């Protein structure tokens, strides 16, 4: 079964690059431009993994993460948080909220793809 990945970011170019990378790695990709869109996308069939940007207007990544973890039916969804701010206390906050990994931008595309594969049990 093809694993589904949801890419959430407010920067169109970053969304485009992540979408390309995930598709090339063989995943099914959906995109959301902000937190609300992400939650809406989750409602139908929850993806196996969330690539979640932290700093977005209105609903930010932390809040999305918190809400996802509050839903028992979404507990299997893995979350990788992406941030451009790179502060240690934010990484801790993200992990405390239930994120599975915390990646600082800019990142190595190969390492990110590798991490996603590992997390979804496809090496």
């Amino acid at each position, binding site marked *: 079964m093809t694993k589904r990945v949801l890419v959430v970011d*407010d*920067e169109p170019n970053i969304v485009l690059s992540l979408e390309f990378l995930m598709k090339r790695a063989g995943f099914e990709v959906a995109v959301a431009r902000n937190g609300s869109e992400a939650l809406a996308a989750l409602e139908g069939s929850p993806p196996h993994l969330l690539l979640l940007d932290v*700093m977005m*207007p209105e609903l930010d990544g932390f809040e999305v993460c918190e809400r996802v973890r509050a839903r028992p039916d979404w507990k299997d969804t893995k979350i990788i948080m992406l941030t*451009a*701010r790179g*502060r240690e206390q934010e990484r801790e906050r993200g992990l405390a909220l239930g994120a599975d990994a915390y990646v600082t931008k800019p*990142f190595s*595309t190969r390492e990110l793809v590798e991490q996603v594969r590992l997390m979804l049990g496809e090496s």
Partner: protein
Amino acid sequence: MALVGTALTLSILYLAALFAVASFGDRRAGQGRSVIANPYVYTLSLAVYCTAWTFFGSVGLAATGGLAFMPVYLGPTLAALLFAFVLRKILLITKAYGITSIADFISARYGKSGLLAGLVTIVAVVGTVPYMSIQLNAVAASLELMLVHSPNAAFMTGADSALLVALLLAVFSILFGTRHIDATEHHQGMVLAVAVESIVKLLCFVTLGVVVTFWLFDGPGAILEGLREAGRGDLLTLAGTGYGNADWILLTALSALAMLVLPRQFQVAVIENVELPHVRRSIWLFPLYLFAINLFVLPIALAGVASALGGSPDSIVVALPLAAGHDWLALVAYLGGFSAATAMVIVETVALSTMVSNDLVMPVLLRIKALRLERWHDLSRLILMVRRVAILLVLLLGYVFFQLIGNRYGLASIGLIAFCAMAQLAPLIIAGIYWREAALPGAVLGLAAGFAVWIYTLIVPAMAGTGTLSITLVTEGPAGIGLLRPTALFGLSGLHPVSHALVWSLTANVGLLVLVSLLVRQNKLERLQALLFVDVESSRASTRLWRGEAQVGALLDLLRRFLGPERAEAVLASDAAARGRALARDEAADAALVQLSERGLARALGAASARVVVGSVVRGEVMGPDELMEILDETQKVLEYSHRLEEKSLALEEATGELRRANERLQQLDRLKDDFIATVSHELRTPLTSIRSFSEILHDTPDLEPAERQHFLHIVIRESERLTRLINDVLDLSKIESGRMEWHVGPCDLRDTVQEAVAASEGLMAEKKARLECELEAGASVVVCDRDRLLQVLINLLSNASKFLPAEDGRVRLIMRRHRDRFEVRVEDNGPGVPPAYREAVFEKFRQVSDDLKSRPKGTGLGLPISRHIIEHFGGRIWVEDAALGGAALCFTLPVPRADHPALAAE
């Protein structure tokens, strides 16, 4: 009953009623429900100014001199308006230092001088006696007129009606005014009675006026008719008064001064004043009263002239009704006059008797060792007795004066003569409360000289007139020296005798007061008192004037002797209340208690006597003035020191607060800096992420479609550009904010710069398919600024506008116009606009406002903050508002440089 009998009965009934009113007032005061504590009663009590002189004399004067009666009422009217602030200060002083009379006031100011207090009292008594005689004269004359109309009043025949009136009033005044010993305690009953009398005399006079004018005559027109027939039409002209311009001014000024210095006016206006604010209302109420009571003076007087009554013009008010056969109206007139006279006599004698006992008799008695007054058990009875005798004496002196001068002068002339004597006190008061240097020797010499000149210029001619002195003294001058003629001193002639006397007496008075004060040094107590008076607003805190050792018992005995046991206990009780415990008899009294006792005694004895009396029991002398000043200086120093300490601690507190605020500000700045760095980091990492990701994709994916490869490369280039812009902006901003920006300031043409920015933005607009219109006002448009930075702002604003344009039919309009002192540039668009809540926020760093988050604008978020810095650096303003096109208008102004601007000169 005979008319005169009715009049006498009426007088006694009236006095009884008045006594009842006074008792009521005192009773209410005793219950703490004062009837007089309101501005209306205060104003009515001020109307004690209007005496029998007003009632009989003004009409008499108007009958011979027409408008000549007016200065006496114009003066107080002006005084009420102009002297309100003087009165306020006098009131503050009086209330602060327990002043009992005008003599006490003046002597307290000039070092509590007994000599000056005595002198003032003598002037007051001498000035009052003729005034008193007017009242007796007027009432007696009315009675005698009625006697003529009472053929069967045998019991009155041969009786001396003036003496009768004098005795009656003396008894009444004694009953009335000397029930208490404390002269500062308000005579509430008396004030209420006087207020009632003011109503009675006003009603009587108006009734008389209305009946005479509209009943006996057919209105003012008929009176004028009669006047012309009597050949006295001149009475209505200024010439008819016999006054020159100078007389008008001088007599008005004299009457104004009288308001301030007549003992009875000082009594009602100052001593009896319950609350300071009452003065304010009286400023217009009192002139109103004066106007009302003077309204019918002229009609009645002219009616009297027209009726050719004969007899003294001062009797017109009674003679006119009698001649017309209206006995009742004559009684109304008599009653009004009687009430005016009694009011004056009561208040004047109360005021004078206090002065005579406190400032003349008691100081002398206290100094006569043979009397051994210090052994007397209760002196308060003695003081009351002195006051009663003083009242009787003043009235009898008035009677004697009346017998001597008789009817030789009109009431008004005698009144003015009295005014002139009292006016000698005015310079001492005015200088005393406004001029610190005014000194005791100056005051004594000035007052004595003024008083002497008054005697010489007014009393000597009067005595010559009665034959007591040789008439040649007046006509040729003493020893034939013409320059010294008492009615034309130093050749000054052509004035009314009173104006003449006023000029010379006040010249001598003021001249000596000022000259001597400038020459002598004040002693220290005087300096202190002068300070306390002149700076009363700031120095009301009690100053401790006594050092020393007195036993509480000795002070208590002293208080008992002079005030009686009850009041003595009251003084100690108030001390106990202030101290929190009562002192025992054998304890040492401290300065506060000594001071309190002196104040208590001053109320009964006046300041000068109280000082002497207290000095007798305070062991080790009354504090000498030198020591006193030393202590004062020391107190002053301590006060200053504590004041400085207070200031220092305040400054410390302030500094602490400032430090705390600075610290908070630093912490805040630190947080802001952190936030800024985090934000900048985010803004830099975002394009960097795209660049790295796409570069890696391009590198790792050799088999990309050519179109896709092209697209990704394009993104890499665009994001690199974005990164460059961002770095430039961050550097710019940090330079500007830290003040390290290098500005290349010079004159530059705003229009040229705008056009250059438009040219540079054309590509951008074409890309957006937007229309750019320019409306640039013609005319000189030179501003002083950094041209490159200005260009940066303009391009930034244009590119900003382009980002928010609708996809179709985007429009940008650039407007430049000149106001009086500034140029305004507006960049308007037809985009979505900026909601009012965000119009300030858009100038914050990294605050991009957009409704549509899907199309996040491609800016650094620093353009507007940088633009604001630049515009404000050159003295302009930048803001956002609604555009005529429907979107946002980003506007800024730059000042029109002054012609002498140095940057323009350099060109």
